[in-house]
């Protein structure tokens, strides 16, 4: 079991690096969606025995992260009728290198932290931290509004990975609540993106500079 979990976590790490180097918006959305889907299978692998609530929650997560949210993002992209390229503030190679560096640092940091209880896998904490860092990198170094939303999704995925350690403490109700918040958040943001696009004729967040001291 731990073997499967570990290999899935390594796949998640690779997806992180891929996303930092992705230059096409479509590829980025697909990668984020597949990362979300991979992650939503993990609680099923970890559960001692399968009960239907766990299956329902996993199903909802897959539906949301794998289908609905990517669809909202694709629609926003289509409506915007803009260039399909990701516009970075820092080049793709430097961000990939930063991401790799972040992963190494996460491994070192996680090794320094005290282990509490009996974690399922030693990789959970470093992969979680590294995914969170990837999310932050995408949020801060890409200028288009949609890419920043994807960054936020990755950030949330990283937190979700940490949640694996606490399956007993985070009841399904709370998990569904967190998903609901994520969905509403993305929904509201996509409306705002639509309006940004209409008002400023672009999704470039660098244009949002009217308000400052």
């Amino acid at each position: 079991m731990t073997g499967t979990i570990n290999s899935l976590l390594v796949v998640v790490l690779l997806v992180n690096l891929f996303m930092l180097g992705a230059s096409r918006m479509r590829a980025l959305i697909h990668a984020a969606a597949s990362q979300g889907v991979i992650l939503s299978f993990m609680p099923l692998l970890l559960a001692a025995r399968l009960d239907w609530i766990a299956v329902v929650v996993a199903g909802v997560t897959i539906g949301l992260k794998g289908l609905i949210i990517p669809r909202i993002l694709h629609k926003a992209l289509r409506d915007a009728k803009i260039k399909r390229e990701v516009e970075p503030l820092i080049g793709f190679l430097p961000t990939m290198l930063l991401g790799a560096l972040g992963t190494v640092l996460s491994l070192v940091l996680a090794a320094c932290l005290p282990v509490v209880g009996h974690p399922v896998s030693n990789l959970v904490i470093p992969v979680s931290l590294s995914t969170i860092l990837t999310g932050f990198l995408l949020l801060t170094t890409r200028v288009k509004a949609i890419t920043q939303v994807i960054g936020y999704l990755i950030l949330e995925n990283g937190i979700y990975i940490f949640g694996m350690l606490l399956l007993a403490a985070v009841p399904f109700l709370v998990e569904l609540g967190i998903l609901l918040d994520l969905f509403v958040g993305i929904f509201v943001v996509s409306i705002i993106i639509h309006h940004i696009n209409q008002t400023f004729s672009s999704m470039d967040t660098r244009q949002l500079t009217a308000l400052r001291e």
Partner: protein
Amino acid sequence: MLFVLILIPLLASGVALLMPSDRSRPWLLPPVAIAHLVLTLSAIDRNSEARLDGWLWLDPPGRLVLLLLSVLFVICAVYTTGYLRYRQDRSNRVFVACLLFFLAAGTLVAMAQHLGLMWIALELATLSMAPLIYFNRTPRSIEATWKYLMIGSVGIALALLGSFFMAYSAMGSGPPSLLFADLLARGATLNHTWVRMAFVLLLVGYGTKMGLAPMHTWKPDAYGEAPGVVGALLAGGLTSCAFLALLRINHVCCSAGQQEFTSHLMIWMGLLSMAVAAIFTLGQKDIKRMLAYSSVEHMGILMLGAGIGGIALFGALLHMLNNGLTKGMLFLSAGNIHRSYQSKSTDDVRGAMRRLPLSGTIFMLGFLAITGSPPFGPFVSEFTILTGGLQYHWYWISALFLLLLLVVFVGMGRTVLTVVQGRPLPGRPASAYRDHLLTGLPLVISLGLVLMMGTHIPAPLADMVHRAATFLEVHP
């Protein structure tokens, strides 16, 4: 009882979405607000029991926040009915529904005893405010909403990570739990490293929501572009909910023996917020942005008081009520001034006391109240925090506190006096708006409450604040 308190505004929010008429929809707000207040008063009166396996319980600090939220909402509900009469140019369906949904989410924060549930409720309250900030549909309000959503979401994501860290820290002594009661009971066995990391993340996360420096950058934009009534609810309601979250988390950390670590962080964070606010209020021309920086300052004061603890914590809880009520008064009167002058910059707005005798006067009195002049409420609570600082030998901190209060007084004073004194400038755009019963009465009510808090705090209320402070106090 607890369920009813959440369900009433929630159902009303659904009704608001279904109601066809823009004219009659705002009139849904005052009855719902008053029903909520009546229920709140009776829920506070009798000691409510825990519901849903201890997930919902109105703890003593939660009662204070719920009372503040409910009173502030009544004031804002009456004002909104008046305000929306001037905004018949657009549909208010989403506006009214989101206001009611915000009340339901805020009520849930006040009674959530589970870190995850509290997080969900606070995030829902945040999201429900986004369409309200965006009500004016101008490019500037889009920008403000975007910043509010992105900065707020990242902050709240960090808070979720912090909540998970907190649960993980308890895994050494049994199954992980996110219930405050469990975490408090197992305080001594929590892993110190993880508790500290959890506290830092939660402080940054919920601190973003409160608008503590340096995570305050969304605040002037959002408060500046939102309608006045939304500013009042954000500055008095949402920030108080986030403060409540931090108080509960600090309580757990203190029970894990981390009092020294958390109190230092909170005190310095508080002072930094006050300092940043002081710098940006000096020479601030935009009255709503000035109020936003004043809110940053007062969040700093709350953190400072909570960090010092003891009698200063009592002062901070009292100050939370005072700040909420005074901010209501200031934002609503600033909204009236903005509407009448079609501008919120001191370049255009002069002689507000002449053109709007009521709003101008209350804006002026609100300035005196918020900067801590007697006989208003904030004077009493700021004085209590100062007493705590001196009593626990934080002399330098207390001196800095006083200095920063003085700087903010000077900075705000220049802007406010320019606005209220003199004569309206000729040849500037202006609307026909003048003081009106529905947009004036809420100002008078909040002024009365702020005066009451400064001259004579009713015994039951003082008792509530005492209980909340005692509840949060940890005796190792």
